[in-house]
C-alpha cells in the first residue's frame, strides 16, 4: 500500500512540474533555442567541410544537449524557491526520495523532448547519414540522457539553493559527467559509421552501469541534500 502511495506522490510531483512548464512554455522554448544556437556555433567552429561536420556531429550534439540541459535543471528548483514552495513540499507526508524521483521524471521528459528537437536539427545541419542501426542510436541517446538528468537533478538541488548557482552547477556537474559523455559520444560515433570495430556494445554497458550506480547513489543521498 505504502509503495502505491509513493508512486502516486511521484506522479503528482512530476505532473505539477510538467504543468508549470506547459503553461508557461517560456522555459522550454528558450532552452531549445539555446540548444540549437549552440549547434549552429559548433557548425561555424567546425564547418563548412561536410565530412568534418559529419565526424564531429556526435560530439557537437551531446555538448549542445549538455549546455542546454544545465539550464533546465536549475529552473526545476528555482520555481520551487520562489514564494517558498519547497518548504511546503517538504512538509507533505512521504519519503524524500519521492520528490527527487518526481523531479527526475519531469526533467527526463523535458530534456528528452528538448533532445528530440536538437538532434533533429543537428542531423540536418551536420549532414548526418542515418545508419541502419538507428534503434540502437536512440537507445544510446536515451541512456546518455538518463545519466545527464540523474546527476543534473541531484546537483541542481544544491546548486540552485546556493549563492552563485549559475557557475556552481556546471562546475560540479561537468566533471562528474565525463564518463557519460565519453561513452555516449563514442557509442554514437561508432554507430554512425556502422560500428565496424564492435565497440558500441562495451560503451552501452558502461552507460547502463553508470546510470544504475548513480541512480541508486543519488536516491540514497538525496535526503541529506534536500533537508538542509
Amino acid at each position, binding site marked *: 500500500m505504502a509503495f502505491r502511495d509513493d508512486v502516486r506522490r511521484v506522479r503528482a510531483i512530476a505532473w505539477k512540474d510538467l504543468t508549470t512548464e506547459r503553461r508557461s512554455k517560456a522555459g522550454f522554448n528558450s532552452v531549445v533555442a539555446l540548444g540549437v544556437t549552440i549547434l549552429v556555433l559548433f557548425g561555424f567552429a567546425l564547418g563548412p567541410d561536410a565530412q568534418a561536420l559529419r565526424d564531429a556531429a556526435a560530439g557537437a550534439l551531446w555538448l549542445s544537449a549538455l549546455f542546454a540541459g544545465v539550464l533546465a535543471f536549475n529552473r526545476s528548483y528555482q520555481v520551487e524557491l520562489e514564494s517558498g514552495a519547497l518548504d511546503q513540499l517538504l512538509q507533505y507526508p512521504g519519503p524524500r526520495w519521492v520528490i527527487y524521483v518526481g523531479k527526475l521524471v519531469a526533467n527526463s521528459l523535458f530534456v528528452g523532448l528538448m533532445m528530440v528537437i536538437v538532434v533533429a536539427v543537428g542531423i540536418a545541419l551536420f549532414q548526418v547519414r542515418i545508419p541502419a542501426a538507428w534503434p540502437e542510436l536512440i537507445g544510446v541517446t536515451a541512456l546518455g540522457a538518463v545519466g545527464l538528468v540523474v546527476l543534473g537533478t541531484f546537483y541542481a538541488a544544491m546548486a540552485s539553493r546556493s549563492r552563485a548557482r549559475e557557475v556552481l552547477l556546471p*562546475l560540479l556537474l561537468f566533471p562528474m559527467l565525463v564518463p557519460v559523455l565519453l561513452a555516449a559520444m*563514442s557509442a554514437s560515433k561508432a554507430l554512425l559509421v556502422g560500428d565496424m570495430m564492435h565497440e558500441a556494445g562495451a560503451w552501452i554497458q558502461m552507460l547502463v552501469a553508470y546510470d544504475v550506480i548513480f541512480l541508486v547513489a543519488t536516491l540514497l543521498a538525496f535526503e541529506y541534500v534536500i*533537508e538542509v
Partner: protein
Amino acid sequence: MTAVEQSVEVPKAGRWPLFGIFAFAFLICTQVFAFMTSPPDANMGQLEKIMYVHVPAAWIMFVCFLIVLVYSLRFLWKGREDDDLLAASAAEVGATFNGLTLVLGMIWGKPAWGVWWAWDARLTSTLVLFLVFVGYLSLRAFVEDPQRRGQWSAAVGILGALNVPIVWMSVTWWRTLHQMASTAQTMAKVYQLGLWTNVAAFLLIMVYFIRRRYEAACFTRAAEQAAQAVALGGQD
C-alpha cells in the same frame, strides 16, 4: 537526520609544529638519498629523478581522497562537525597534491614526450579528478550554513569518489579503443628504495598539512560560533 549544534573544540597545536619540521627534514634526506643512489635511467637519463616527487604526490593524492570519502560517510552517519572539517581539510590537501602531480607530470612530459600534455588515460583522469575536487571546494566556499555545507559537501565528496574508477575506466577505453596503450615498465631494484622512502616522507607531510589545516578550520568555526553567540546576546 544529522545536526551540527555542539560547539567545535579547537585542538591544541602541541608538538605538531615540531612534527612538521621533522617531516620536511626527512623529505630533504630522502630526496638526497634517492638522488645519490639512483643511476641515470637507460632511456630517460637524469630525467627519472622527477619520479621521486611526482609518484609520491600522485599516491598521496589518492590517500587524501580516501580520507575525504571515509570522513564524509562518517559525518553523514554520526553528524559530528569535526568529521566534516577533517574531510574538507583532506580535500584541500588532496587537491594541492593533485595539482602538484599534474604540474610535475607536465614538466616531465615536455622533455620525455616532447609535449606538455598527452590525452593519456592517467593524465586525463587525474585532471578530471582535480576538477571534481575543485567543484567540491567551490561548493564549500559558496555555502555559509555549516549544517548545509557539511551535508552537501559530504554528498559531493562521496559521489566524486564513486566516480573515480568509472572515469578511469571510461578514459582508458576511450584511449585504447583508438590507440595503443602505453606499456607499464617494471622498475629496477635500485630505484625502489628511493621511491618508497620518499613516499613515506610525503605521507608525513600530508599528515602534517591535514592536521594544521584542520586546526585552522576549527579556529574559523569557533570564531564564527563566538560571533554568533555575541550577536544573540548570550555571552560577551
